[in-house]
């Protein structure tokens, strides 16, 4: 099996254009950013880069959603003065690709993703050049008109899909300001009266509860048991889109069981509720194939046990008895997880790296949704290989305590190792048709 060290992972984190610069600084991304850095300017053109003409559009498009009053960002970036005040920090974070907070390697695997907020290399270079040149404001006439931002507490997918057809709310729970993790598991009515196919799902903590609702999984409860996973939410995740033609079923008469992991974080929250927004296909929607969202385990150690100041690698190998399309991939772990990858091992022995996150953070969980024309297709006999890397040293700045043994568990201090993967289950006809629709395409990183 291919062996990848954490050091090699670092090289995948940034585009080659930036790698040499950062290597000279000895930057380990898990260990934070340099206090001072010299960045080579890669100006997009031989002209002055100004805030109003060049930087403001980037900030509007990629930053203000969160960095505006009432939203989750710690500071506002709505004006030139705002951005100038934090300019060097902004530069450091965008160069390290820690902001926007969407950790996904740029130089390997599938890059065509839905709802991908990553900056382009040109955008990063523009911001860098602007800071390096003294942060000129530029001509006010060049400033783009301000964005009329909708309510930051809205359902994000509503921007594209309109309001959800159904909103399911958890029973209220009051989270204390201090204390240990706790799991709130109410079961509520769904309001679904007939089998329907889901088009999209967004689980949304309350605006006040965003910092303490670490996870909010949900599943259907049907008579005599469990009706499958409805959705998964972890801190930072936007939502899920089910591809056209596939059906993630909302069963008639089912209740919804929430499993909300609250972690007290200094906020005394009364009667908090998590909402699930569900967009449904029309009743006459022609479902071709079923899609589901399932947890796929990785294994390692006795129970993900990581020694004090140690590291761990985990691995999971899975295959299906029918052809499938992988629609999305979401790594999951806690504070010691630092990287995860998904590869395909084809039946003929060839491997492809599909996705990699080399700088994973427990603060931002993303379901990476593949554009439909590039979502991986697996035939019977093909397998996915999931690999996780854990860092229990001081180099991992999210590590709460590197002196501890760490093992499997539900709490923030414990670890998990799995990936949430949405899979459309095909048949041979559907598999061949999707392959034919795509035609031949270049294969990257295939061995």
């Amino acid at each position, binding site marked *: 099996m291919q062996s990848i060290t954490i050091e090699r992972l670092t090289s995948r984190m940034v585009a080659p254009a930036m790698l040499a610069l950062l290597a000279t600084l000895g930057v380990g991304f898990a260990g934070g950013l340099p206090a001072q850095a010299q960045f080579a300017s890669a100006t997009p053109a031989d002209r002055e880069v100004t805030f109003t003409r060049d930087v403001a559009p980037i900030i509007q498009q990629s930053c203000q959603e969160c960095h505006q009053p009432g939203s989750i960002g710690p500071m506002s970036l709505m004006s030139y003065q705002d951005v100038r005040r934090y300019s060097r920090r902004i530069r450091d974070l965008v160069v390290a690709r820690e902001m926007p907070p969407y950790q996904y390697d740029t130089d390997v695997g599938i890059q065509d993703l839905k709802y991908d907020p990553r900056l382009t290399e040109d955008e990063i270079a523009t911001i860098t050049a602007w800071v390096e040149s003294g942060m000129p404001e530029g001509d006010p006439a060049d400033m783009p008109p301000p964005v009329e931002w909708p309510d930051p507490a809205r359902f994000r997918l509503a921007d594209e899909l309109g309001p959800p057809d159904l909103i399911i709310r958890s029973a209220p729970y009051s989270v204390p300001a201090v204390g240990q993790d706790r799991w709130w598991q109410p079961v509520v009515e769904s309001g679904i009266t007939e089998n329907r196919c889901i088009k999209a799902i967004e689980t949304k903590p309350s605006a006040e509860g965003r910092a303490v609702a670490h996870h909010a*999984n949900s599943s259907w409860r049907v008579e005599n048991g*469990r009706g499958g996973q409805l959705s998964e939410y972890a801190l930072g995740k936007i939502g899920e889109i089910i591809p056209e033609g596939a059906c993630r079923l909302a069963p008639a008469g089912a209740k919804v069981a929430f499993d909300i992991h609250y972690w007290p974080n200094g906020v005394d929250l009364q009667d908090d509720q998590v909402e699930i927004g569900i967009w449904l296909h029309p009743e006459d929607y022609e479902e071709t194939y079923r899609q589901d969202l399932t947890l796929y385990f990785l294994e390692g150690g006795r129970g993900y046990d990581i020694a004090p100041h140690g590291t761990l690698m985990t691995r999971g190998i899975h295959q299906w008895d029918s052809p499938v399309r992988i629609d999305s991939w979401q790594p999951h772990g806690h504070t010691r997880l630092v990287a995860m990858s998904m590869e395909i091992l084809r039946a003929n022995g060839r491997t492809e790296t599909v996705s990699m996150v080399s700088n994973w953070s427990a603060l931002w969980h993303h379901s990476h949704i593949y554009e439909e024309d590039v979502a991986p297709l697996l035939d019977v006999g093909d397998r996915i290989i999931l690999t996780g890397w854990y860092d229990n040293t001081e180099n991992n700045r999210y590590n709460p305590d590197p002196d501890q043994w760490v093992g499997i568990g539900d709490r923030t201090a414990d670890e998990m190792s799995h990936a949430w993967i949405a899979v459309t289950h095909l048949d041979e006809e559907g598999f061949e048709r999707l392959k034919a629709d795509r035609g031949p395409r270049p294969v990257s990183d295939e061995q």
Partner: protein
Amino acid sequence: MARAAVALGGVAVALAALAPQPVSSQDWTRREFPLAPPNSKGNFVAPYFDGYYPNEDGTYTISFGFMNRNDDDLIEIPLGPDNFIEPAEFDGVQPTSFPVVSYPGFGGPCERGAFGVVVPGDFEGDVWWTLTTDGYTTRVPGRLYSPGLVIKGAYELSTTPMAAGSLRPTIRFTEGGADDWGIEGIEHPETLATRVGEPIEVRFWAFDRGERELGAVNMSLWKHQGPVGGKISFESLVEAPSGAAAASGLNLPPGVTLDDIPPEVRARFGLGAGGGRAPGPGPIDVGAPVRLPTEGANANMGRFRATFHMPGDYLIRVRIDNFNAAGDSSVGNQCCWSNGYVRVSVTD
């Protein structure tokens, strides 16, 4: 995080594995290829710091657990240079017997909350627990702070209710006497005495606690301390609850019976024969939970016999949990259970 949903006799089982699957939720056949198990023998015991919680009197309890990293082998490490706590004032409360445990789902192979060290409210520094197994030494600090740069408070535990209202159950060893709860536990007021081969009988009372409808609690018995090789045979004297499903110690969903559980699932979670769970009086394995009755003349009473096969001084840990009482209590949650300790002096 994915969570196990059904509590049965003190351990949690993925509900999907118990209930028959409706058509709307077909099991799309998939195969997993587990990594070859380490087939671990000759491995070591790792100490674990589970967290800390404040007490009403201003002190703090630091909770410790352990992981025996072998597949099957019991490891015993006597108190002394291979098993000690620093500062020395806290030494002596830790276990010397480290069985292999395996909790399903995200419970894992770690025995959490095996003992607690109580420190004063102004305690600074660390309480280190050091274990050496066959020459390999490892240790962890129990501490009231988090040195992490970004994530703080990950090791804080609570004495306030869990999400569904569960609190740590209480235990007392004398009828009508004082009871207590917590990881640091309560000790039997007497040191019991017996001879090798002559069983002792222990009675105690244990009660669920919580800001919710109260339910049953489970007892599990552990050799906490004792001479190396000194086996203890435990026998539950708890009456069997009524009803077939209840007798299995399971909290099954409506309409689901033990027969609905596939044999491989039963084997994996130790249900039924060989699983160590006693549906009534009879021998029980170390750590196997037994549900205590909540009704009748013996309501909330736990009774067991212990027979010792070697002379020496022993300390039995009686763990009382309410894992099956509500969905918010499980091993992985670090709540809710309490420990009781019984000292026994065994002579030839």
